[in-house]
Structure formats: structure tokens, C-alpha cells
């Protein structure tokens, strides 16, 4: 049989059927939905940063009158909802949703309509939250504890708006999680056994399952609060058969679970980035995957770590402390293997690895401070002081902003076809690094040494915290500038960044096999996965074919994979 080349069909893109925004708004494609979530999350990050700056401006000097108490509480409530429900969660689930099907070699997701409805619910929730900001937003704080959030004490509709906004978004994330877990379970490419799953896809699956457990818990609590407020309910009313502490249990299960989701996301993304830029596979993948799966239940079971000052039994406090401290083992094992992969690797300090290293560093400070917050008697002093603010922000800004930016820089070429500007990324990184230290280290002193309390719209002269608060305010401005620089970088690089090609970093997982940005159906040819590093196998097959082709007189046109 003669080796005549097969005819090639050249397709110059697909003819656009409708305007781009209509395509986006009606798309059920995981890449479109993922991009919507990631873009929206970065927008809400900007808004959250503005809100944080306004609050820090109020707290720059003692007994400041810049914001009224009511305005401060409204900023605080909107900031908390923005940071958790409209920045951290959509960024995490947006990246999971975009990258995971590509990593497992799927042509789409299993239940695309669920994802589409999920994103629509998220958008509806965001609209409610920021529409309420124009009228009467919630004044009940980051976690609106009953009975303050009850109708008796906050009679306007602010809390109702908060409940609606967070409830819609949470329902959206639950639907997306159903699609995500189903996709990873059922749509892996031939040969993609669980043990060959990329670590990031694994953390997507773990986070999805976790959201399936914690999301409904918050939805139940929000429904109860809604009934209490609007239909004479008694769920959180003392003396009528309800209990104020019920809200704390349910809401803290959710918020602790979100904390773990951010942690699992960050560690998963960092694992991919470290392996790629150290140019060697992640050490002890099975251990890392097992540890990531262990973080979800262990960490979430520590929800009462937030309730040490509440009237609950000491046994429950010790249980929460046991779970919090048990978290040291899986988190420690993941971090150990990340560092062990870096030590002995050939590190290319590109922007993703830089942000990943920053995330490890910031999260280490946050979790170490959280360890002290976990020891019951120590927490009796530290809880609800600005020490807790600092601990939470080191862990969550470390995980969601530094870790999220690492993931953003890493997968931005895949999403847009262009790389983010490297020098601006470096400037942004060092600004953010200086900012986070300057913004939150002083709060450790103000909280642990001087007992400055959390969520307060002012502090008093003569309590020894003036300097710390001024430093923190300056630091948060520096942090904000650093964050905005990366947002600017992302916007500028979308159109003008250097062209990336399909595999700019030499990654090992299958998303780098697809085009940048990928076709709607992701892959022309579904690769046959033979190991945990399928893209490396494909690269070797190409090299092998090319060397054979150099020897052979006629160029082979067999498909690569």
C-alpha cells in the first residue's frame, strides 16, 4: 500500500452564529461558564478590596468619624459576602470548572445545564447583594449571628437581601459541584484511572463533594432565618423551642468548609504548578491526594473551633480542638511533599511559581496563627480579636488571592491564548507580599497583646493600638495596589500579552494538549492515557515520531495519540 498523505481539512475557526455576548450568556460550555465565574470573581475581588480599604481608612486613627457605625457595619457585611461568596468561591469553582474537564480528557461536562443554571444563580445572587448596597444592605456582619440578624433587632430588609444573595450563590455552587463531581467520576479519558488523575482535578472532585455536604447546610440555615424573619418562625428564637446557637453551628459548618475548600484548591493548584516549574513529577502523589481528601472531613468537623466562647460543653470544644490540630498531619504532608519536590528540582521562577511560593508562605503564617486560635484556653483570649482577623486573612488571602493568582497566571494562557505580562506580575507579587505582611502582622500585636476586638467601627485612644492600626491601614493600601496591578495585568494581557501556544509551560496534564483557547469540543482526538503524566507521554511520542520521520523518506501523517 502506497504511503500517500491523507488530505488535510483546514478549518479557519467556526463561523460565529450570534454575537459573542449572546453566545456567552446562553452557553452551557464549561469553558465559557468557567471564564464567566473567574472574570466575575476578579471583579468582586476589586469591590471587596475597595470595601476593605474604606474600613481600614476608618480604622487608621482612633475614634475616627469617617464612616458612621451603620455604614461601617454595612461595609463589613458586604465585604464578607463579597470576599467569600463572590470572590473566593467563584474563583475556586470557576477554575475547577474550566480546567478539570480538560485535565481529565473530557469533551465537556456530564451535566452542562446544571452548570449553566449554577452560574445564572450566582449572577442573580451577586445582583441582589450589590443592588441591596444601593438601598439597605445587611448590617449584621460577616456571619450574621442570630438573634442580631432576627427581625426584632434589624428590621429593615438588609439581612433578607444578604440571605437571598448568599443563598442563590450557594445553590449555584452546589449545582456546579454536582456537575463537577459527576464529570470527574464518569467522563475521564480512556486509561485515566483515579490514580492517574491530575492533583488539581482531584482537588476539584474533593471540593465538589465537600460543597455537596456543606452547601445544603447553609441553605437550610438561610431558609430558617428567612422563615424566622418573614413568617414568624422560631428556629433561632430562645424560649419558643428554638436556639440562637443553632445558627452558629450551621453557619460555621459552612464557613469552615469554605475555608477547607480554599485550602484544598490552593494546595491542588500549587501541586500542579510546583511539578511543572520544578520540571519533575510531584513526589508521593498518592500521599498528597490522600491528604487532600482527608483535609475536607477533618477540617470541616472542626467547625466548633469558632464557638469556644459560646456556652457549649467543654467536651465539644476538645473535639473541635482535636480536629483542628489533626489537620496538621494532612496539611503538613502536602506541604512537605511540595517542598520536597522543589528541593532537588530545576526551578524556573516564572510568575505562577512565584505566586505559589507566596501562597505557601502566607498560608503557613495563617495556619500557624490558626493553631494558636485552636487551643481552647488560648482562644478564649484570641477569639474575636483582630488576631483572628489576621489569621483568617493570612490563610484565605494566601489561599484564594496568592494561590488564586498563581492558578490564574498558570492557566491564563490556556483560557486566552496569551501569557500574562511577567514583569508586571513580579511587581504585583512583591507589592502584595509587602502589603499582606504590613497589613496583618500589626493586627497580631493589636489583637494578642492589646485585645483589640474584631468588627468594631472604631477603637479608642490610649489602648495601645494606634500604631498597629495605622500600619495595618497603610499595609492594606499596599496590598490593594498589588492586587489591582495583577487585575490590570490580566485585562491588558487578554488582548496584548505574548502569544502562548498550546503548551507554554511544558506541563504534564492533558489541558496542555488542547488548543489555547480550546475548541468548544476540547479535543479533536481523545488521548489514550498510559500514565500519570499523559502530556509528557504525548510530547515523547511526538519527538519519537519526528526522529523517525527525519529518517524516513516520506513524512508520516499518523495521528499522534
Amino acid at each position: 500500500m502506497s504511503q500517500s498523505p491523507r488530505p488535510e481539512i483546514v478549518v479557519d475557526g467556526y463561523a460565529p452564529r450570534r454575537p459573542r455576548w449572546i453566545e456567552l450568556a446562553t452557553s452551557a460550555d464549561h469553558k465559557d461558564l468557567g471564564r464567566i465565574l473567574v472574570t466575575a470573581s476578579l471583579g468582586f475581588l476589586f469591590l471587596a478590596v475597595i470595601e476593605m480599604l474604606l474600613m481600614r481608612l476608618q480604622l487608621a486613627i482612633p475614634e475616627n468619624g469617617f464612616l458612621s457605625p451603620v455604614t461601617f457595619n454595612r461595609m463589613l457585611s458586604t465585604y464578607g459576602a463579597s470576599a467569600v461568596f463572590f470572590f473566593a468561591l467563584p474563583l475556586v469553582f470557576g477554575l475547577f470548572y474550566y480546567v478539570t474537564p480538560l485535565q481529565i480528557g473530557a469533551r465537556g461536562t456530564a451535566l452542562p445545564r446544571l452548570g449553566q443554571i449554577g452560574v445564572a444563580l450566582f449572577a442573580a445572587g451577586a445582583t441582589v447583594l450589590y443592588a441591596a448596597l444601593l438601598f439597605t444592605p445587611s448590617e449584621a456582619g460577616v456571619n450574621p449571628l442570630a438573634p442580631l440578624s432576627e427581625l426584632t433587632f434589624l428590621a429593615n430588609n438588609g439581612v433578607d437581601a444578604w440571605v437571598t444573595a448568599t443563598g442563590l450563590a450557594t445553590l449555584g455552587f452546589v449545582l456546579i459541584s454536582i456537575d463537577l463531581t459527576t464529570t470527574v467520576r464518569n467522563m475521564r479519558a480512556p486509561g485515566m484511572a483515579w490514580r492517574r488523575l491530575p492533583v488539581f482535578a482531584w482537588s476539584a472532585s474533593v471540593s465538589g463533594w465537600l460543597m455537596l455536604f456543606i452547601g445544603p447546610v447553609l441553605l437550610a440555615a438561610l431558609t430558617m432565618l428567612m422563615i424566622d424573619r418573614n413568617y414568624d418562625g422560631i428556629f433561632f428564637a430562645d424560649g419558643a423551642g428554638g436556639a440562637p446557637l443553632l445558627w452558629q453551628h450551621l453557619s460555621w459548618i459552612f464557613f469552615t468548609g469554605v475555608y477547607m475548600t480554599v485550602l484544598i484548591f490552593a494546595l491542588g493548584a500549587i501541586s500542579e504548578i510546583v511539578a511543572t516549574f520544578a520540571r519533575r513529577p510531584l513526589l508521593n502523589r498518592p500521599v498528597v491526594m490522600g491528604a487532600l481528601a482527608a483535609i475536607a472531613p477533618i477540617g470541616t468537623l472542626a467547625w466548633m473551633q469558632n464557638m469556644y466562647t459560646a456556652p457549649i460543653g467543654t467536651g465539644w470544644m476538645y473535639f473541635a480542638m482535636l480536629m483542628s490540630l489533626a489537620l496538621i498531619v494532612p496539611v503538613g504532608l502536602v506541604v512537605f511533599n511540595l517542598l520536597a519536590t522543589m528541593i532537588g528540582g530545576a526551578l524556573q521562577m516564572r510568575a505562577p511559581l512565584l505566586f505559589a511560593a507566596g501562597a505557601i508562605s502566607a498560608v503557613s503564617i495563617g495556619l500557624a496563627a490558626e493553631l494558636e486560635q485552636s487551643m481552647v484556653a488560648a482562644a478564649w483570649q484570641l477569639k474575636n480579636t483582630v488576631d483572628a482577623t489576621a489569621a483568617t486573612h493570612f490563610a484565605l488571602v494566601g489561599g484564594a488571592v496568592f494561590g488564586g493568582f498563581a492558578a490564574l497566571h498558570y492557566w491564563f494562557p490556556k483560557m486566552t491564548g496569551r501569557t500574562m505580562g511577567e514583569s508586571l506580575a513580579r511587581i504585583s507579587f512583591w507589592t502584595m507580599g509587602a502589603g499582606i505582611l504590613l497589613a496583618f502582622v500589626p493586627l497580631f500585636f493589636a489583637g494578642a497583646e492589646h485585645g483589640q476586638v474584631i468588627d468594631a467601627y472604631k477603637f479608642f485612644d490610649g489602648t495601645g493600638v494606634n500604631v498597629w492600626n495605622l500600619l495595618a491601614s497603610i499595609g492594606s493600601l499596599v496590598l490593594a495596589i498589588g492586587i489591582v496591578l495583577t487585575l490590570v495585568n490580566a485585562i491588558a494581557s487578554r488582548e496584548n500579552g505574548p502569544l502562548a501556544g498550546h503548551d507554554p509551560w511544558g506541563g504534564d496534564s492533558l489541558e496542555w494538549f488542547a488548543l489555547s483557547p480550546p475548541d468548544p469540543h476540547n479535543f479533536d482526538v481523545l488521548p489514550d492515557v498510559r500514565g500519570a503524566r499523559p502530556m509528557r507521554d504525548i510530547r515523547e511520542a511526538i519527538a519519537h515520531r519526528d526522529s523517525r520521520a527525519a529518517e524516513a523518506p516520506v513524512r508520516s501523517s499518523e495521528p499522534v495519540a
Partner: protein
Amino acid sequence: MAPHSPGTDQIDTLLWIGFVAAAIIVVAINVALVYAIRRYRAGRDAEPRSAEGGRRLQFRVGAALTAFAALVFVLAVIFTDKARETPSSGDAGLTATSEQIEEGEPLTIRATGQQWLWRYDYPNGAFSYYKLVVPADTAVELELVTTDVIHTWDVPSLSGKRDAVPGKTHRVTFRADEEGVYQGSSATLSGQAYAAMRTAVEVVSPAEYEAYTEKLLADIETAQDRVVSLIEEGKAP
């Protein structure tokens, strides 16, 4: 905040233990990170060392982490149990000759959180707002209750925080070792004037305490009589 009660002495020790444990974690991770980046930074052509499995090393690391967590847990339980103990009154404290206290029992004062003030009810029937006066070297038990939302009683020198939750009575005990004024605040967002909802504990000698509460009671009764007389004489509506 300098500790001034047996409970806060224990908490202070635990805070230092926690600080050391936290510092170990931060230093270990960040030193390894900086070492890795400085030592193994590579040009495009550098080859990584081949990766080794090291299953035994994983077990060792896991065991070390478990031991570290267990040690922290045990120390935290020990010091928490000590910090929870109700202290007994010292020799210089209020004695059972006072009508306000029983032999071997702490001086019980009711602390009521309300938007946005703390009210203290003394055993003799007197009450005060914002400022709590207690005798030195005497075991004091506060019964924390609230009339509206959740408030957290927080005087860091004397005790850890405790929440006053609707429908529950939460107890906090301390024994102030030195006379003086200790500042405190509320530590759970309770609405508009939350930041202003502060409190102060003035620790005085037992004799001064008795004199203060008796005068307080007499003043309250005088004020009450005056209100009654003003209304009955028609001078006030």
C-alpha cells in the same frame, strides 16, 4: 494584656506555648521554601534530580506531625483544664463575715449584656452600669445573661471571653490579684454602638467593696424614693 487572675496566668502560659509551636511551623516551612528557591533555581537547561519515592520517609514525617499535634493537644487540654478551675478566695479577700458571700463559695454577681451597656447586679441588691467593682483576692463568679442579642464579656486581664447568649446563663470566674482598674470590651458584633459597649472592672479592698455596694444600694433607694415622691406630689408626670 498582663494577667491578673489565676486563670489568665494559665492562659498566658498556653499562649506562649502556642506562639512557640506556631513559630516552629512558620520558620520550618519558610526556611525550607527560601532554601529551595535559592539553591535549586535553574536555567532552561538544568536537569532536575530524578524523583525518589521514599515511602518510609512519608511514614516518618506523618508520625512526626502526629506527635507534634498530639503534644500541642495534650498541653492545650492541661492548661485549659487549669484555666477553667474556679479559684478559691485568698486570705486577703472578702470573708464569710460579709453577708454577700458564703463560706467556700465565690462572690456571685449577675452581668447582663444589653444593647449597648453592661449591667452588674450585686448580691445585696445594688446594681451598676459599665463599671463593675469587685474585692481583691476574692473568687468572683459572673453569671452572664443577655436581654437581647449575643454579647461577649471580655476583660482580658482577668478572664478569657465568654458569650452571653439569650436563654442561657454562662459563668465566668476570676480572682483579681491586684487592686486597680481593668479595661474590657464586648467582643461580638451586637449592632450600631457595639464598639462603644465597653466595660471596666475596678478591683478594691474587701472593706472598700462593702462600703461601695452599701452606698450604692442606699443611693439607689434614695433615688427611687425621690422618683416616687416627685410623682405622688405631682411634680413629675
